[in-house]
């Protein structure tokens, strides 16, 4: 168990798949006579298992056992188990912002014990969860670790700040090189920002650079969601015979050159992300609209326009109900694009203005064009 604890830190930085080892091994060892029985091991096992295999009933049973075991644990182990629950399990089943509020208790307990490491974990994870779940940008940006603020800062700024995007991205890359532990979370936030700014190729580039999705805080769902949206946009652009779509071919060529990516690989990625999101949407109310959004994209890719429009409409309603302003705005933005391609300009303009209103409400001033651009 000591050896496992010693190697698990290195494993977390080495390989996402190998990360399952400490969780599985600690449960296996815990079942042997003479080994220490801690709730933390079983809670971590439940979290990793659900991420990969799903199976809510079984996962919740393990959570219950882990909570019972942790009640007999010492103070340190107790709040660490609670941290795992609030960061990696509860958000899959309950509204994420409520689940993230549970991390406040962890932060306080860790602070009382002088455990600065867990204070920082709890604080930053709560900020990430709030950032991806539609909390107004101005409220959440100050809570994020400094190296991960750039993408949301870009959205908060004025539209002319977008001209400096390349420079900001370059600076952020340099900052991340000094903090590799924040890399996956920061890249998820970049994927969010670049998706909102309608740059699918750059979103895929970020996904590729991060390698694996972030392991904690259900941010994997967001990572997969934005990657699927970007893949759908790129695939659609490739099918478009008009000259402006040449950018997509250029980008795909660049991506292929660098990472061996092809349209077929993009389709495979899209299918994988869709499958995962559909699985998580079965039990997590916050993932339902994301899965529906992906279904809308799929319908558009397959040329089922009316079905796609209906799904976009449903997605934006559902997203608004859950407080995901940015997802509602994104769905309306895509809906406007589809309507424009069908030459239904009036409806497209209405969807676009609704989208802008939601972006404004969210605080993404960079996505709000000057009033003259919105007038028909």
């Amino acid at each position, binding site marked *: 168990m*000591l*050896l*496992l604890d*010693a*190697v698990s*830190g*290195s*494993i977390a*930085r*080495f*390989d996402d*798949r*190998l990360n*399952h*080892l400490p969780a*599985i*091994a600690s*449960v*296996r060892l*815990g*079942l*042997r*006579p*003479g080994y220490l*029985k801690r709730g933390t091991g079983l809670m971590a*096992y439940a979290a990793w*298992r659900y991420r*990969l*295999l799903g199976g809510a009933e*079984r996962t919740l049973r*393990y959570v219950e*056992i882990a909570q*019972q*075991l942790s009640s*007999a644990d010492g103070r340190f182990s107790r709040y660490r188990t609670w941290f795992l629950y609030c960061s990696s399990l509860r958000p899959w089943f309950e509204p994420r912002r409520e689940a993230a509020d549970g991390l406040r208790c962890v932060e306080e307990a860790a602070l009382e014990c002088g455990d600065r490491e867990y204070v920082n974990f709890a604080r930053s994870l709560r900020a990430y969860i709030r950032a991806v779940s539609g909390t107004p940008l101005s409220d959440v940006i100050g809570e994020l670790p400094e190296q991960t603020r750039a993408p949301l800062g870009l959205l908060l700024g004025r539209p002319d700040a977008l001209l400096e995007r390349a420079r900001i991205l370059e600076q952020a890359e340099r900052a991340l090189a000094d903090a590799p532990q924040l890399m996956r979370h920061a890249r998820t936030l970049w994927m969010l920002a670049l998706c909102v700014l309608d740059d699918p190729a750059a979103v895929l580039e970020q996904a590729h650079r991060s390698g694996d999705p972030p392991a904690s805080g259900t941010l994997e769902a967001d990572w997969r969601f934005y990657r699927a949206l970007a893949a759908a946009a790129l695939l659609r652009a490739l099918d478009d015979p008009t000259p402006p779509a040449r950018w997509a071919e250029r980008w795909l060529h660049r991506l292929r050159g660098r990472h061996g990516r092809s349209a077929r690989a993009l389709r495979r990625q899209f299918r994988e992300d869709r499958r995962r999101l559909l699985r998580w949407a079965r039990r997590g109310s916050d993932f339902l609209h994301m899965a529906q959004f992906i279904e809308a994209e799929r319908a558009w890719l397959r040329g089922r326009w009316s079905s796609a429009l209906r799904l976009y409409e449903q997605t934006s309603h559902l997203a608004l109900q859950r407080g995901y302003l940015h997802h509602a705005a994104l769905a309306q933005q895509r809906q406007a694009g589809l309507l424009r391609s069908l030459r239904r300009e009036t409806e497209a303009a209405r969807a676009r203005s609704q989208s802008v209103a939601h972006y404004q409400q969210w605080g993404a001033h960079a996505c709000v064009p000057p009033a003259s651009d919105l007038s028909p």
Partner: protein
Amino acid sequence: MLAVGAAAASEHYLECARGLLRDEDAAADPQLAFDVRMQSALSAVHRRALDEADVFFDRLSRQSLVPMQAVQVTMYRIGVLAMRERIAEAVRLGLEALRPLGLRWSLRPSRLRIRLEYLRTDWLLRGCDASDFATTT
């Protein structure tokens, strides 16, 4: 002295201890020899003299150790490799040390392997509740 963070001062005394430690002492009292070398290695780690620490760890690995001592040495070696950002080597060393304990994992396990491991663990956990865990203690 090392425990309160005075690594440089402790090294002074540890150097004397190493000078006094003869091969026959190590044979007569292996625990004492282990303690001296281990504390010397830790003092080097605290002073960030990682090459020096490696030399001590190598010497310790050649010594015949009881399992708990071997685990202790491996743990610190993993820590030193991680401090040097040689993560792959740290993981490899950890996996090699876990192998005799029945955890035989490769550096890049396949998805199928992971799924099978989960299924096997689920099978072991079938019908378990907190009281079952408690009775196995």
